[in-house]
């Protein structure tokens, strides 16, 4: 299987504070990676840097991304929207509320911008609606959510389901899910995990960021990494997640 993502010696800072201190990570098509680590270890920073958040400054290293067609990009030179068009998706730990912009308008604009990039015509209202209903069903989201402001007044679980719905709509080749499990009860967790499992193919890849083993009962990773103080300190198979659950992080730090 081909490499989708290759991160080499990645350093990043916010303000004067260096947070990522030399990350190396390679992700291949068809793989599910889990990144685990304590609060503050830099998990969200890594996902933000991958998605192109300009608050973080990359001081060293490179990120190569290869899309479905086999075109390789230097991700660090791309704007957030270009990364999305190329097939990168970030499920936010804290999805942003956008009052006044309806969910339907938001996703329709996004889907049509993706289509425009591929030289396709915008979807008609009926086509969009059909697609939206299908994808909402994957995460058991009520269609009434579509007319509400993006994430406005959504519960924690509803926000996370909305992230997975958006992922389903955009069909990325690399999805980074930042603590999609936090704040979810068991039912919601199962719904979210099922959504991910249904979208998994041999061509795409997932990076599941979590600090609990719980989610990994539902989304089984191929590879587990431990992030500590901005570095990956251990990489192993799925059994590592169980080990962390039993022994805690101390052992590995």
């Amino acid at each position, binding site marked *: 299987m081909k490499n989708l993502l290759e991160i080499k010696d990645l350093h990043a800072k916010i303000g004067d504070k260096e947070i990522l201190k030399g990350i190396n990570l390679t992700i291949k098509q068809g793989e599910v990676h889990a990144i685990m680590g304590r609060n503050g270890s830099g998990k969200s920073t890594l996902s933000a840097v991958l998605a*192109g958040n300009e*608050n973080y400054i990359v001081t060293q290293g490179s990120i190569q991304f290869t899309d479905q067609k086999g075109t390789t990009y230097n991700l660090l030179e791309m704007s957030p929207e270009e990364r*999305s068009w190329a097939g990168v998706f970030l499920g936010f730990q804290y999805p*942003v509320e*956008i009052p006044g912009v309806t969910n339907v308008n*938001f996703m329709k604009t*996004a889907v049509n*911008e993706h289509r425009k990039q591929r030289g396709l015509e915008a979807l008609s209202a009926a086509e969009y609606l059909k697609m939206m209903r299908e994808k909402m069903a994957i995460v058991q989201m009520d269609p009434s959510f579509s007319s509400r*402001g993006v994430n406005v007044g959504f519960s924690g679980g509803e926000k996370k389901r909305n992230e997975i719905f958006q992922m389903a709509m955009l069909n990325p080749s690399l999805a980074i899910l930042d603590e999609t499990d936090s704040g979810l009860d068991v039912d919601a967790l199962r719904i979210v995990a099922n959504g991910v499992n249904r979208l998994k193919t041999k061509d795409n890849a997932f990076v599941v960021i979590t600090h609990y083993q719980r989610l990994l009962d539902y989304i089984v990773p191929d590879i587990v990494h431990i992030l500590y103080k901005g570095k990956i300190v251990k990489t192993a198979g799925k059994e590592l997640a169980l080990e962390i659950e039993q022994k805690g992080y101390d052992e590995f730090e």
Partner: protein
Amino acid sequence: MDKLKIIDIDKEIFSCSVPLENAQKAYILNGVLMSGKEDIRGVQMVSEKKSITIETKENNFLQIINVRENAVLRRGEEYCIEIKANALKEEKSTIVLCSHTLGDERFSTKGKINIVVEKECGLELIIMQNENGVSVHNVDIDIEIKYGGSLKLNIITLHGGHITNTINSVLLEEQAECDLGGLYLSDREQVINTNVNVLHKVGGGISRQLFKGILDGNSKTNFNGKIVVSPQAQKTEAYQANNNLLISDRAKATSNPHLIIYADDVKCSHGATIGTIGDEELFYMRSRGISLYEAKLLQQQAFAGAVLEKIEKKELKERLIGLVERRLRGESIHCQGCSTRCC
């Protein structure tokens, strides 16, 4: 002769095509009622020199196209429109007043709009201003609301040179309601001023104000809003909000809210904000593949939406939402079929 010529070309120039099935249309040029008088059924329209009186009856839907031009002999032109809302609230009338300029010369106009809402009557008035970028336009709107009367006024300023809208609204008798809204979009060197004075003379009245501005380029806007609640105006509710969104860091918004309350049993609030589009929201949208340009546009539309959503007449609301979008996209925004070249 001058007049005739204008009537001649009136079909071309003023044929605003807001697709409003039952709207009756009237045209005013430099303060003089040019046509429409005969077509208007159920509405009393009287034109006397520079004063036009409109008396609404049940469920009228009236579109008044108010055009000014720089006729050399008519500098400092004035116009005066008197509106008497005489239809009960349940069958209230809607008036949309479209304010345009002809040509791109600089000139100034003073306008006066007097509104009286009769006992238990209602009116929805929408003023749409789309004028050239150099002219001066001062509009004084005086409102009197009698017992149980209700007025909804929204001013949508799409484009203009130096516009000052001054609203003086008096809740004259009890149970009066006054809902004032405004959306001003400014760009380049434009200046848009909004002065609002609401006076609660007696109790039991409700007034609401929501004025929002989106400022681009070098433009400047001023909002001065005042609510006065008289000592005898107990059980008054009065709310005011002014929010400004700066698109350019050269634009300048000022906001001066005043609340003067002499009664003690009242509910009043006011709030003013001046801000920019949030980075977090932009990043979230961009991470979904919405380009920076479209993301900013969505945010501006969302911001403007709160005022546009207040417009009750559905076909009018949709039309204005479309015009605002085109204006924010920087597309020319004269209504289809219109050639006033106001921007």
